[in-house]
């Protein structure tokens, strides 16, 4: 159910995300002070190539990572297998990526 290829994708996406998650937590701790607002978020991210790259990469990695993680759970705990399992994995990954890409676009260059 997890072969070498999926395993590598899972570990590689994890490695990529490790520094990104640390950065994300640091931003959250910083940004939460004094409450959240749309203006504050956009002020930080709008037009920024850095945040676009940061969160763009994050969304890509998390889509891969979550799709494979949910695939394992769907197989081990729900019993999904074969074609249904493949479809579930792809749908999860592409769905998350679409939603995530829209969010990143909205707060940077939209």
């Amino acid at each position: 159910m997890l072969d070498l290829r999926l395993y590598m994708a899972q570990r590689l996406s994890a490695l990529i995300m490790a520094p990104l998650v640390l950065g994300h937590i640091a931003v959250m701790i910083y940004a939460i002070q004094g409450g959240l607002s749309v203006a504050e978020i956009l002020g930080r991210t709008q037009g920024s190539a850095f945040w676009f790259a940061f969160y763009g990469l994050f969304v890509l990695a998390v889509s891969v990572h979550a799709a494979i993680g949910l695939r394992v759970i769907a197989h081990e705990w729900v019993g999904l297998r074969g074609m249904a399992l493949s479809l579930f994995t792809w749908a999860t990954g592409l769905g998350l990526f679409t939603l995530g890409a829209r969010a990143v676009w909205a707060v940077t260059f939209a």
Partner: protein
Amino acid sequence: MKTPPRAHPLWLAFILHRLSGLALALFLPLHFWTLSRAITAPDSLDSFFALTELPMVKLAEFGLVFLLAVHLFGGLRLLALEFLPWSNSQKTLAAAAVGVAVLVSGSFFLNAI
């Protein structure tokens, strides 16, 4: 409550990693959808953010940050277990991962309130 018969520290670390990952994956669509409204519906997003002043919501946020941190540090332990020279102190490392996650999410919480 009786613990399940085969519960042991590393098994609990496994369950924690799986459940935190599952919860984060379920939270992500909501997170993405909310943010994508920054342009299309900034006012309704701001009124959503106003909710984050509620104590219950702050607690939920703390929970999410804890799940993220515990999945990160627990995951780093697993990467080290698989790719670095073997260490026999896996139980200690698993406990340390939870400890660091509590610290990190705790400092988020202290900044949130």
